[in-house]
Each structure stands twice: as C-alpha cells, then as structure tokens.
C-alpha cells in the first residue's frame, strides 16, 4: 500500500491515453465477442487492432467509444472510465465509423458545423476550426457541396475531418479505407500520417488490410476470437517469424533433407507449393535449392505483416481443414 502511494505521488501522470484491462463483451446466448482483452496506448501512438472479420475489433472499439456497455473488465480513455464517465470519454475522442455516418443532404460545411455545436466548440472559433480541418483533408473548395455529390473517398475524408474538429485526444478509425480504391487509400494514409505528425494525437485503427497496418501503425495487436493473440511493433512481429519467406513451386520436394538445416525455421507444404521460413535466406538459398530437387519456380522475399497475420490467425484453419501433415 505504502509503496503504491509513494509511487503514484512521485511518478508523472500516466501517459497511457487508452488503458484496457480484461475487457469483455458477452452477447445474448453466451456469445463472447470480446473475451478479456487488455492493451494500452500511449500519447502520440498509432495503434492497430487487426483481426479477421468478426474477431471483436469493432465491438472493442464501440465499448471504448461508450456505444456499447462492457460485460466485464475496465477501460479508460484519457484517464476517464468508459462506464462511469461516458460524457468525459466522448469529449476526449473522435470517431470515424466503418460506414458513412454523415448526412448526405447537408453540405460538408453544415455537417461540420452540426458536429461543432454538439461538441460545444465555442462559436468564436468554430469557423476557424472548420476551415482548418477542411484544409487538412483538402476539401476546402468542396465545403458548400452536398455530401451526396461527394465520392466515397471524399466523404471518408470529411468524416476524418469531423472526427478531429473538437480536438480529441484519441482518434478512432474503424476500417478507414474499407471499400475504397487503391489510389484513395493511399491518399487517406497520407492524411493520417500528416495528422500524426501535426496533431500528435493517439490513434486506434482497426483494419484487416495488412499493408495499411504496416504503413501506419507503431504497434499492432492481433485479435482473434475475441482474444489478443499478440501485441508488438510491426518490425518486431516480422522479426519474430525468424526469417525470410521462400516460396517454391515443385512436384516432388525432398523435405526431410530441409528439416536438417538449422536455419530453416518452418516448412509448410500445400499441394505443389512449399513455403519456407528461412534465416538470412539470401545466403542459404543455394544450399536449399541444391538438395530440394527440381523446382518450377522460386520466390524469395522478406516477411510481411500478412505472414505474421497468417501465423497467428490462419494456422488453426489450415491444420483443421487442410489435412496436411
């Protein structure tokens, strides 16, 4: 007790903008959507919540945003409890929902003004704030157009701008580029990167695009069946795979021989395709090709987040359904 008290007096205020411990959501019929999730996000950090569809990402986000009440556990945003101080939490966050949540019969400006009013942005600085965020997402010249004349990407940008209007401490982006074309996705990424640099806010992104997570996130938690299976930086996650990826296509591979090489970390054979995880693959590929037999094609590449994702979420399906050994 005494040590705790002293520690709390001496240490600076916690820099955790979001702190989630053992958060649980059980729906009717005993369906565990989120099953004891814990993580924390520090100031200025971009945190990715990755997982297959239905893994519990959006449910977690909605609990943090006070839209859903947790069944158990605790979550704090900007130091405020999501159950006991929902009003304070809402003032601290901005959200961009998965689906468009703006009114298409209003103009961009009108949507933003409505948001400013609801969040109590003082009228003296309202106009200036709206101008700022419109500029940030390059929509200044479309401000007076009805939203129904916006493209999907523009609308998403406007909603990002709206989420920032009241200067939140934490921005929630739920699948920010879902359903957008590659070019627009690149654009949205640029805006998000600019935001992190200029506004220094903490961001939580849910996504199932691996390239997106890799590009934007400082840290990633992979969530599957409502449980956080791993939580680390993208670099570290990739390093943990233990090497580069070599994909070989061939008919009759000599696999037992490969298993004796210490630098071959993993072997996975599916039909005619063999996937190897190999330490410093570049310097060992000759040896591997020497023993494995006649190959049709070889592909060597550094590991990506997709490989990480597959390792932590995909393996089970393969083992259960694949029939491979």
């Amino acid at each position, binding site marked *: 007790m005494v040590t705790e008290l002293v520690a709390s007096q001496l240490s600076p205020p916690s820099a955790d903008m979001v702190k989630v411990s053992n958060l649980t959501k059980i729906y009717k019929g005993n369906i565990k959507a989120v099953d004891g999730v814990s993580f924390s996000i520090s100031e200025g950090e971009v945190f990715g919540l990755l997982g297959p569809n239905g893994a519990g990402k959006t449910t977690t986000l909605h609990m943090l*945003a*006070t*839209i859903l009440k947790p069944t158990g556990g605790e979550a704090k945003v900007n130091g405020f409890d999501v159950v006991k101080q929902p*009003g*304070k939490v*809402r*003032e601290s*966050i901005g*959200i961009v*929902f998965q*689906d*468009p*949540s*703006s*009114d*298409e*019969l*209003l103009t961009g400006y*009108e949507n933003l*003004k*409505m*948001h400013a*009013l*609801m*969040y*109590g942005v003082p009228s003296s600085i309202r106009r200036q704030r709206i101008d700022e965020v419109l500029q940030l997402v390059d929509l200044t010249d479309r401000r007076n157009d009805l939203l129904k004349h916006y493209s999907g990407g523009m609308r998403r940008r406007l909603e990002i701008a*709206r989420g920032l209007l009241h200067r939140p401490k934490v921005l929630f982006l739920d699948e920010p580029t879902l359903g957008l074309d590659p070019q627009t996705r690149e654009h949205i990424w640029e805006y998000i990167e600019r935001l992190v640099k200029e506004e220094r806010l903490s961001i939580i992104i849910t996504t199932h695009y691996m390239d997106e997570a890799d590009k934007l996130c400082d840290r990633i938690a992979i969530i599957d069946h409502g449980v956080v299976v791993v939580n680390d930086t993208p670099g570290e996650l990739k390093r943990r795979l233990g090497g580069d990826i070599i994909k070989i296509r061939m008919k009759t591979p000599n696999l037992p021989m490969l298993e004796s090489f210490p630098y071959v970390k993993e072997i996975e054979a599916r039909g005619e395709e063999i996937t190897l995880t190999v330490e410093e693959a570049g310097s060992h590929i000759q040896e591997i090709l020497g023993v494995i037999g006649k190959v049709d094609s070889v592909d060597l590449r550094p590991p990506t987040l997709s490989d990480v994702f597959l390792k932590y979420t995909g393996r089970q399906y393969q083992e259960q359904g694949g029939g491979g050994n």
Partner: protein
Amino acid sequence: MTELGGLYAIWEREVRVYLRERSRVLSSIVSPILWLVVYGGGLGSQISVSGLSYQAYIYPGIIVMALIFSSVFYGASIVWDKKIDFLKEVLVAPVRRSTAFLGKVAGGATDGLIQASIILLLSPFFGVSVGLNLVLVYMYMIILLVGLVSIGLIIGSFMESSEGFSLIGGFIIFPLFFLSGALFPLTNLPDWLLTLTLANPLTYGVDALRGLMLGSYRFGLFVDFSILLTFAAVMVGLGSLAFEHMKV
C-alpha cells in the same frame, strides 16, 4: 451549454433537410387539400354542420390530420438515421440522449408547422378566417405536434426497417384520425364511438382549433389545453425513455 447547442444542431439539421426535399414538402400538403376539395366539397354539397359549410367544418380537422400524418411518419427518419449510422455520430457526441430526442422533436414539430402554415394560407378558399386567434392556433398546434412527433419517434426507436415502420405507423394513424371528431360532430354518436373519441387526445386538438377558427367548441380551450399538455408531456417522457434504451 453543450446540451443547448446539441439541441439546436439537431433541430437545424432536420429543418434544413426537410426544406431541401421540396417534393416532400409539396406531397405532404397534397392529400390534405384533396380531402378538403374533393371530400369536403363533395359531401359539403349535400350537408352542412351546425350552420357551417361542411368544408369549413372539417378544415381544422384536416389540419390536425396533416399534423398526424407528417409527425408520425417523421418518426421513420429515426429508422433512416440508424441505417446510415448518422445516429451513432449523434449518440457518441457528449450530449444526453434526451437532448437528441428533444432536438428531433423540435425538428419534426417545425416540419409540421411549415406544412400547416401552407394549408393555413389557403384558409380563405375554404371559407375560414383565422384572424387574431392565429397566435393561439399556433400555440395549440405546437403542443399537439410535440405529442404526435414523440409518438412517431417512439415507434421509430423500436423499429429496424422503414417497412415495419409504415405498417405500425398506419395502425396508429388511422384510428387517431378517424376517432378525433375531425370529420363529424360528436353529438348523437353511439356510445362506443363517443367513448373512443373522448379517449383520443387528438379530439381536444381538433376541438381547440375548431373553436379558435370557427367559434364552435365542445370542451372549451382550458380543457383542451390541459389534456393536450398532459398528452405532450407524457409522450416526451416516454420518448426520452425510449431513446435512452434505444440500440444502435
């Protein structure tokens, strides 16, 4: 302060959107005018009620009818708001849910008033002159609208689809309208019909408007006022509760 700003924001949005959909405004006054011209004119060529032309007699009732239809069906907007996730944006804002509800009520009531005003502009054509009572007419219409819009929003808060809404809405609207004394006087009604009509809060709205416009009261302004105010207050209370428990 935020609550007030939130209420204003939601009200402003509702009114802007309503005015932007011109076709909605126009179509909403077509059927009341048809009732007045065709039904009122047709039946009016045969009968008159308490010394008034039938058209003039039903004129206040048709205004109430327009208010019922527009405000109950306005409740469908909440179903739409849910569908496009706009409601989430409102409900994660740091304003109370009851504020969001009141903003919607204010918006729906304003839509109804705009519609009623257009019909009121046409009053001379139907042999009705409102005169100085206009202020009181608006006051009673506002109280009535608050109650009616709340009914629509309560239904909307429970519904997931607009088809479901129309079904339930129809079930509520027609009895409310036919049992309000909008189309016939309450004298000489069979007991069961009279009982149902007296239990309908809209009856008192029709009575107040008819009295203010044509000078023919059955209950008097004070009784009408008390009952309408109670009706509105109860509906606002129930509506806030419904919004509190609404799932998004």
